[in-house]
């Protein structure tokens, strides 16, 4: 099977390390690869959209699972699909949308694999109603360290350790997923502006039940009275009758046609995202949004995956790469959220991607990120001076409030804070010691945080 020693990094392109990348094309090859992992172990990897070092393994093996990408069975009546872990959500949407089914949960990009979606227990804009990805996984097949393949059902310790387990319990080979029915490939979107953070939070909190999908983009460079001003976009899948008769959309209601722009060049200097440039962009983005507009029809790709239109958009952060800081705090900890927003705004982080969402009920994954409450995610150039110490201070604040940072995004958390953020990490370690006594599955993230 194809194998090559190359530098591997996450989507943030910070801290690359070298690994032997093996691309199995059959389950047998995957078993052989796992059995053949040397002393530095192995870790499965999908499309590399985790920002940090979750899918890299310095000096060891990385199993590129994208070669295992078959869709085995679709039950078009009940909306259940059985597919390989290497299938991307993009592919699933392409195949299933014409049948009237959509993926139950999607993050800001379609270019993640099913295996990655389960390993990181990803969430989307519908978390307050639909939970995270694992809630819709009926069962999965896991290749464990001993080279055996197990069928793992819901409500088992192995299932709860694997969903959100960052690939450290084994290699997911297939998954059975319950899909979401849709009548059209469009979304009816309501857009409104919020003048500051409190306004945005109040509006989000007031309408949890009204919208399936709900998100707020926040201008973190706005200061003073406008601190935390936001643009809210919320919506739901458009019913067939929302499409005007006689239009192309009505004739092909389930067509999937994502747009795609050219990628930025491979080498861009650091510092393109200056504070002033981002500040102007934010001003423009805020003003561009309508004060209030309802019922606008948007394509799925436009609404869910705006950045997928620009391949390799992470290059605009230059050689230094980017850090995504995403944290969650529970209900009642709104003051912590306000304080973080204020501090980010005072620190003048040139962040043009800052997203605020509400989380609904948590799922049982031991290291699953969402907790009922609020989550804020922001992209920051890693080259920003003093960023490390600044984010450490935010971590402290978040941990004190009982909150946590997202492991799929992390590339820098202080290991001492992990247990406070993820109280079930000891159970996770114990289960790993049981199913993988030789420590075959290991990643840079696992080494860094002693997972």
């Amino acid at each position: 099977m194809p194998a090559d020693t190359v530098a591997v990094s996450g989507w943030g392109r910070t801290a690359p390390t070298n690994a032997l990348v093996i691309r199995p094309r059959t389950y047998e090859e995957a078993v052989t690869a796992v059995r053949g992992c040397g002393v530095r172990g192995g870790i499965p990897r999908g499309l590399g959209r985790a920002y940090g070092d979750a899918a890299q393994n310095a000096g060891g093996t990385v199993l590129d699972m994208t070669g295992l990408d078959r869709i085995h069975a679709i039950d078009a009546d009940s909306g259940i699909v059985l597919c390989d872990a290497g299938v991307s959500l993009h592919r699933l949407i392409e195949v299933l949308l014409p049948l009237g089914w959509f993926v139950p949960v999607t993050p800001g990009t379609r270019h993640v694999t099913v295996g990655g979606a389960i390993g990181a227990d990803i969430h989307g804009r519908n978390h307050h109603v639909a939970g995270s990805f694992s809630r819709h996984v009926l069962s999965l097949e896991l290749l464990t360290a001993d080279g055996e393949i197990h069928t793992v059902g819901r409500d088992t310790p192995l299932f709860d350790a694997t969903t959100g387990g960052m690939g450290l319990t084994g290699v997911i080979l297939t998954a059975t997923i319950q899909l979401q029915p849709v009548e059209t490939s469009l979304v009816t979107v309501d857009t409104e502006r919020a003048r500051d953070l409190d306004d945005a939070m109040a509006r989000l909190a007031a309408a949890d039940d009204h919208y399936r999908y709900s998100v707020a983009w926040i201008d973190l460079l706005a200061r003073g009275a406008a601190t935390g001003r936001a643009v809210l976009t919320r919506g739901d899948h458009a019913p067939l009758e929302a499409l005007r008769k006689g239009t192309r959309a009505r004739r092909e209601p389930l067509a999937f046609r994502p747009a795609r722009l050219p990628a930025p060049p491979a080498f861009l200097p650091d510092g393109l995202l200056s504070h002033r440039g981002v500040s102007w962009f934010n001003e423009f983005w805020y003003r561009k949004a309508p004060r209030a507009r309802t019922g606008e029809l948007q394509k799925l790709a436009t609404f869910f995956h705006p950045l997928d239109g620009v391949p390799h958009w992470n290059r605009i952060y230059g050689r230094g790469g980017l850090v995504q800081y995403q944290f969650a705090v529970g209900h009642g900890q709104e003051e912590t959220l306000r304080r973080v927003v204020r501090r980010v705004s005072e620190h003048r982080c040139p962040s043009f991607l800052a997203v605020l969402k509400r989380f609904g009920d948590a799922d049982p994954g031991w290291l699953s990120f969402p907790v009922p409450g609020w989550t804020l995610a922001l992209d920051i150039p890693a080259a920003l001076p003093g960023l490390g110490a600044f984010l450490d201070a935010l971590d402290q604040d978040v941990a004190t409030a009982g909150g946590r940072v997202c492991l799929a995004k992390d590339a820098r958390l202080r290991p001492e804070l992990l247990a406070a953020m993820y109280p079930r990490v000891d159970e996770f370690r114990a289960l790993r010691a049981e199913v993988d006594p030789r420590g075959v599955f290991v990643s840079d993230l696992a080494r860094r945080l002693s997972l």
Partner: protein
Amino acid sequence: MKDAFGIPQSLLVLGGTSEIALATARRLIARRTRTVWLAGRPSPALEQSAAELRALGADVHTVAFDALDPESHETVLGKVFAEGDIDMVLLAFGILGDQARDEREPLNAVRVAQTNYTGAVSAALVAAGALQSQGHGSLVVLSSVAGERARRANFIYGSSKAGLDTFAQGLGDALHGTGVHVMVVRPGFVRSKMTADLEEAPLATTPEAVATAIELGLRRRSETVWVPGALRLLMSALRHTPRGLLRRLPV
């Protein structure tokens, strides 16, 4: 592992009593570094350095290491790497010698060359091999502006650093693409116990400033770092100064 900003969690210092190395270790401990290995000749000074870093909250070990005994390097360093990943190796040992005496006593000059160059070649190659099998890590080599151009006042020391500098640059090229990052640090005159008896040169700097520059270099994954940065320009000018003129300059 290193974090997104290139800060190591574990550090191996070769030359464990070097003031620049200790300033760097203090700075890194304040960020992420939790495990430090101080390698050097066993001495009260080495133990005291360890105690000082321990007081900052790091897990510090000392290990007997002699730059002048290259035969032992593989064994000594091998033991350290066997204990766990080393995210950064700081090659900081070196002696200044006494130019006037070393010119009169060639064996002393040889000792400078053997410590600063031969010993470093051996230790750096051993460390580089271990880092390469880890697939990650930084090798930071303390060179000197003295290696950039021969000067009457310190050419024995300067030539040893020139050799080390060229070696480290080449090693960096050899390791390109292996996940191992080699960074050459060229400080100017550093106020320390090593230079206490010398007259201060222009653009003099401190161990703390060198430590700051190293931290920045790690974040940027720099290949060369000058401390202070203005020396890059100055040395570029000096490098192209004709020898006849340079001899008459008060440098």
